[in-house]
């Protein structure tokens, strides 16, 4: 049990304190005491899922936030005041001061893909090569915003890598990431970030939900159109009276559903079916898409030529023509159904091609670690 908790919670939580090696002896003692109690607490757990669910907001987690804030504030206060060379206090060298960022830098470098973050840390650590005067170092760090860069650049490394592996038209998935990335790009300080990220709390669910509804509407009508066409073919094939009756039932029911749906689209969404087909993203969801990679960027779909056939079917359903007349007149459109005999063979080819297309994406090289961010931000598993 500790192995899982060790990896997921214990190690990352405890290692955060490594970034503040120069805290006061009193605070250092409190942190050590907390680490011991936290380890004991972790060792007592028997249910990993329950532990994960209860960890955030628990007393021991709040205590760690508290200690971390104090460590950060000591580092900040110390950084400013240590520069003002105090004859009574021991003067810390620029190199030693910057070494507190070494373990964080090592972690970023070990990740492999966080190149902007890596560069930002290197720029910060390099200050020690530019000056050995602590006040001068602080001036450089402040003027060049080096501490801010290690936050913003490193976070952008993560978000942009994920974003690149997503379908940009799928707003419901990309928005949580792209909106956060945009905030990091525009923010100039931590407080800007705090404000803007907090504002997104009410924006993200709206964009995601609107995208979900768009997909839902396209899926409902797409399914009814295909079932209508399948019903029609069942009657044409007339393998038996039962199957012809099934076909007829499907044609009538789907036609009625399509009529209801088109009315709903107009009355509730000020949209027509034509609008759905003309929307680059929505049109794809009329074609029964199935994601072939973990973020659904590459999709297998029905033949896009169906879109014009679908428009004709919708017009047919909305017309006053009887089903008998429709069946006896034949149709101008051709519907492309999904593969049947060669489905498995195609799935193999599609999977190979997807691997090729995704091969150049950084995300897939580091998916094991990045997918946790995707899951937490995009609410997908």
């Amino acid at each position, binding site marked *: 049990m500790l192995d899982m908790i060790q990896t997921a919670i214990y190690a990352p939580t405890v290692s955060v304190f490594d970034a503040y090696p120069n805290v006061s002896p009193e605070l250092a003692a409190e942190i050590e005491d907390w680490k011991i109690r936290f380890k004991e607490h972790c060792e007592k757990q028997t249910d990993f899922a329950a532990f994960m669910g209860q960890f955030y*907001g628990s007393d021991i987690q709040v205590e760690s936030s*508290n200690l971390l*804030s104090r460590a950060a*504030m000591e580092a900040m206060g110390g950084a*400013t*005041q240590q520069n*003002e*060379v*105090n004859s009574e206090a021991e003067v810390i060298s620029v190199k030693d001061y910057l070494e507190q960022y070494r373990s964080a830098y090592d972690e970023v470098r070990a990740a492999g893909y966080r190149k902007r973050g890596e560069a930002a840390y290197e720029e910060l650590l390099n200050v020690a090569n530019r000056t050995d005067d602590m*006040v*001068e170092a602080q*001036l450089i760090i*402040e003027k060049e915003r080096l501490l801010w860069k290690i936050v913003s650049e490193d976070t952008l490394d993560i978000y942009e890598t994920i974003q690149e592996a997503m379908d*940009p*038209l*799928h707003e419901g998935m990309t928005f949580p990431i792209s909106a956060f990335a945009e905030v990091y790009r525009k923010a100039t*300080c*931590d*407080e*800007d970030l705090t*404000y803007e990220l907090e504002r997104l*709390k*009410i924006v993200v*669910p709206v964009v995601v*939900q609107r995208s979900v*509804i768009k997909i*839902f509407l396209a899926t409902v009508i797409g399914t009814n159109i295909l079932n209508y066409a399948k019903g*029609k073919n069942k*009657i*044409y*094939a*007339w393998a038996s*009276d039962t199957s012809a*009756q099934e076909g*007829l039932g499907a044609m*009538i029911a789907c036609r009625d*559903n399509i009529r*209801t749906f088109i009315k*709903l689209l107009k*009355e*509730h*969404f000020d949209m027509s079916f034509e609008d759905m087909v003309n929307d*680059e993203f929505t049109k*794809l969801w009329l074609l029964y898409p199935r994601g072939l990679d973990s973020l659904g960027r590459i999709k297998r*779909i029905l*033949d*896009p030529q169906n879109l014009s056939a679908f428009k004709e079917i919708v017009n047919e359903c909305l017309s006053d023509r*009887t089903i*008998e007349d429709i*069946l*006896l007149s034949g*149709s101008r459109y051709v*519907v*492309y*159904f999904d*593969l*049947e*005999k060669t489905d498995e063979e*195609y799935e193999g080819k599609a999977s190979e091609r*997807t691997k090729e297309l995704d091969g150049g994406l950084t995300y897939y090289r580091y998916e094991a670690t990045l997918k946790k961010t995707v899951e937490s931000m995009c609410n997908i598993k």
Partner: protein
Amino acid sequence: MSDINKVHELYDMMARRFAACAHTPNQARVYAEIRDLIAGCSTVDDSMQKIKNSKYYTAPAQALMLDKMNAYREAARDNKMPELEKIYDEKYREIEADPMKAYEMGYEKKVAARDLKMNQKIAAFNDAYMAYVELLCCGFDKDEIDRHCRDIKKALEEMDRACESFASLAGQEMYRKLVPANDTGFRDFVSNAPGCAQNPPDRSHEKAAFEKEFNELWSSLSAKKGQITEMGRKELGKARYAACLAIPPKDRTGHYEFELRQEEMPC
């Protein structure tokens, strides 16, 4: 540049940076005041001593936490979330009165509880709307109608459990935005969903109309089976089976590209 001038420049630079940001008024003020405080000092030691003997020794840390709380408070206000705004406002005042209160993090728990409740309400409101749209599109199948109505009921109960009624949520701007329908569609949802949760709509007239049309058509089609199957030979010959891949564009302004199309010959 002498060391004291460098220190002065550092505080000045920080004061100006914080002043330029809308969310750091406390840090802007504190760093400007420290800059002014040490303006007359001739050495770094003097300036350090002066700061140590003043309120400014702990003031930057206090200002940092005040600005952080203020940023949260303003966002909550702009998000029209008064309960959250109150939590941050209380914490802000606590820290303002006593800087040591910055180290007490209990407010996080209150915020986490509020966030959890808000997420539950959003999820329930969305569930209710989805179930309502499904109900509108599902035809006359009684099992399906009942299922969607049960889902609406469950979602409304979930909102009650999160201590806010459906009607109250529907009156809030954010929940209105969650529903992509126009005002007519939203009004329809708000006024009809609670009723559907209690009494699933009766669509037996639609079922009767379906059965009537089906029976009439079946007799008529049966009589013309030959003509229909004759037409069927032509029509079924036109049916196709195919699949392809959709590759998304690089950005939102682009178009999907389709490739690896495979078509299967009809039987």
